C-alpha cells in the first residue's frame, strides 16, 4: 500500500539541485506515512543516477541514502522495467517478499533548469556540445535505427504511432486536442501546476507544430520537481491518520517487440500489454474506476491508454474524448485531474501516482472529483515500448 506521499516545489527553472528537491519530497512523504526516517528500510527510484540527458535522472539511490542516512535492507534503482512506475512495482514486490517494511520511492527531475532556454532537446543532441562546434558521438545500439534519420525525440517516434492511428481509425487533431485542453482546465484548479491559463481550441492550434500531428501543446512541459511516496506493508495502515492507497493490481506485461518502430501494432504499443495484464490481476473492471491518471508525455499517449485499459474500444479513443465532457472533472471518467504532464509539468510518471493517491484520500482540493468518493483509481505510465499500470483503491 502507499502510506504516504510528498512533493517538492514544482516549477520552471527553480534553480535548486535535484538532491535538495528530493530531500523535500522524501521528508514530506515519510512524515505523511506516519513514520520516521529511522523506520525507512527500503529505497527505490527510477531511473537511477546518471541516466539520460541533462536533468533527467535526479539523484541516484546511494546519494539519497547518504543524504538521509538511511539504514536499508533493500534498495534498487533502474531504468528498465514497466515504465517509470517500475520503481513502485519493485517496492511493492520487496515489501510483499518481506525484504522491507517501508520503502521510500522517488522520482526527481531538473530538466527545466538543466535544459536551459534552448527548447526541447532530442536524444543524442542534448548536452553533447551541438551547435557549439562540437561533434555528436556516433550512435550504437537501438538508437542507430532512428536517430541517424533525424528522428531525435520520442516526439518523432510517437508521432509516427499517432499518424498511423489517425490513418487507421479516422482520429482527428480536434479530438486529440481535448487531452491537452482537459489537462489545462484541470491545471487551473491545481496551485502546483506550471501552466494554468485557460486554453482554447484556437490556442491549441496556434501553438507551433513540432512534428505532425503534435503541436507544442501536445508535448509535456519540462519542470524541476521531485515526487516521493512510501510503500508500506499493509499492516501499517492503522498507524496512518488518513486513508491509504492499496495497490490492488499491477500491469507490467510486455509481449510485443520492445522497440519504438518494430512493435507489431503501432497504434497501441506496449500499453496494450500492460493494460490487458492489469485486468487479469483483479476482480475490478474498468466500470469500477472513479478517476484515471494516464500518462500524457504526449497527448496521444493518454488516448492509447484509454483504449488499452478498456475504457473504450480499440481505435475509439478519438470519439470517446470528443468534446471533452466525458473526461472532465465531473464527467464519467475524470482524466488527469491535476493537469497531467502537459500542464502540471513533466514529473515523469510519478505526478500521476501522487494525484491518484490525493484523489483517493479526498485531498485534491478544488480539483477533487465531485459528487462521489473516489474508491478506485487507475494510473498508467509510459508510451511506445514502455508501459506500466496500477490499480489503486481507497482504504479508510
Amino acid at each position, binding site marked *: 500500500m502507499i502510506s504516504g506521499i510528498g512533493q517538492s516545489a514544482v516549477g520552471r527553472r527553480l534553480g535548486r539541485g535535484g538532491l535538495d528537491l528530493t530531500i523535500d519530497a522524501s521528508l514530506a512523504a515519510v512524515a505523511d506515512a506516519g513514520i520516521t526516517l529511522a523506520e525507512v528500510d527500503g529505497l527505490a527510484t527510477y531511473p537511477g543516477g546518471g541516466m539520460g540527458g541533462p536533468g533527467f535522472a535526479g539523484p541516484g539511490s546511494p546519494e539519497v541514502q547518504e543524504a538521509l542516512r538511511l539504514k536499508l535492507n533493500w534498495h534498487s534503482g533502474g531504468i528498465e522495467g514497466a515504465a517509470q512506475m517500475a520503481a513502485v512495482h519493485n517496492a511493492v514486490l520487496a515489501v510483499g517478499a518481506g525484504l522491507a517494511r517501508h520503502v521510500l520511492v522517488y522520482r526527481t527531475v531538473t530538466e527545466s533548469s538543466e535544459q536551459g532556454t534552448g527548447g*526541447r532537446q532530442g536524444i543524442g543532441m542534448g548536452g553533447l556540445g551541438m*551547435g557549439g562546434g562540437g561533434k555528436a558521438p556516433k550512435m550504437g545500439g537501438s538508437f542507430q535505427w532512428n536517430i541517424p534519420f533525424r528522428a531525435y525525440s520520442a516526439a518523432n517516434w510517437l508521432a509516427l504511432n499517432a499518424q498511423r492511428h489517425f490513418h487507421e481509425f479516422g482520429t482527428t487533431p480536434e479530438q486529440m486536442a481535448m487531452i491537452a485542453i482537459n489537462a489545462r482546465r484541470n491545471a487551473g484548479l491545481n496551485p502546483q501546476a506550471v501552466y494554468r491559463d485557460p486554453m482554447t481550441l484556437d490556442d491549441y492550434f496556434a501553438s507551433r507544430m513540432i512534428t505532425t500531428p503534435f503541436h507544442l501543446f501536445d508535448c509535456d512541459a519540462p519542470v524541476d520537481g521531485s515526487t516521493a511516496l512510501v510503500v508500506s506493508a499493509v499492516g501499517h495502515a492503522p498507524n496512518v491518520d488518513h486513508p491509504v492507497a492499496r495497490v490492488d493490481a499491477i500491469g507490467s506485461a510486455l509481449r510485443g517487440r520492445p522497440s519504438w518502430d518494430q512493435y507489431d501494432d503501432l497504434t497501441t504499443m506496449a500499453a496494450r500489454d500492460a493494460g490487458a495484464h492489469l485486468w487479469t490481476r483483479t476482480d475490478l473492471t474498468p466500470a469500477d474506476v472513479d478517476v484515471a491518471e494516464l500518462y500524457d508525455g504526449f497527448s496521444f499517449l493518454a488516448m492509447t491508454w484509454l483504449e488499452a485499459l478498456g475504457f473504450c474500444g480499440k481505435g475509439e479513443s478519438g470519439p470517446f474524448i470528443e468534446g471533452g465532457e466525458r473526461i472532465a472533472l465531473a464527467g464519467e471518467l475524470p482524466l488527469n485531474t491535476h493537469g497531467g504532464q502537459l500542464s502540471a509539468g513533466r514529473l515523469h510518471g510519478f505526478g500521476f501516482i501522487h494525484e491518484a493517491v490525493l484523489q483517493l484520500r479526498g485531498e485534491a482540493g478544488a480539483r477533487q472529483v465531485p459528487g462521489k468518493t473516489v474508491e478506485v483509481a487507475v494510473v498508467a505510465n509510459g508510451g511506445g515500448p514502455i508501459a506500466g499500470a496500477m490499480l489503486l483503491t481507497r482504504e479508510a
Partner: protein
Amino acid sequence: MADLPFRVLPRLDDENRFFWTAGERGELRFLRCQACGYYLHPPLPRCPECGSREVAPEAVSGLGEVYSVTVNHHSWDGGREPYAIAIVGFPEQADLRMTSNVIGCPPEQVCIGMAVQVTFEAHDDVFFPLFTPVAASG
C-alpha cells in the same frame, strides 16, 4: 554535396556494417535466416523464428511502402526543416520495416501507403538508406 543535412552517424561494428555500407553498391540489405528465410531487422545473431544461427545479409528489392510518416518542424540539429520521417514497410515480409526519411518531394506530400524506393545518401563510409516516391524518381 553541400546540401547534405547533418546526420548523427551510426557506430559501425561487425554486426551492423553490412547494413550501413551496402549502399555503396546500391543495395539495401537485411539479415536473412538461411534456414527459414525470415528477415531479421534490426540484426540478431539467431533467427527468432526457427532458432537457426545461419543468418546472412541479403539484398531486398528496395521497393517499399510508407507505413507511417511524420513531418518534423522542430529544430533538433540546426539543420533544415521541415522533413519527413517515415516508417517504411517492405513487400518481402509483412513485419519487415525500418525508420528512415522520404526525400525527393515536399515532405507534406508524403502519405501512408505511398510507394517508395530506396536511394542512398553517403556520409563518408556510411550510406544512409533513404526513400523517394516511386513515381517521382521513375
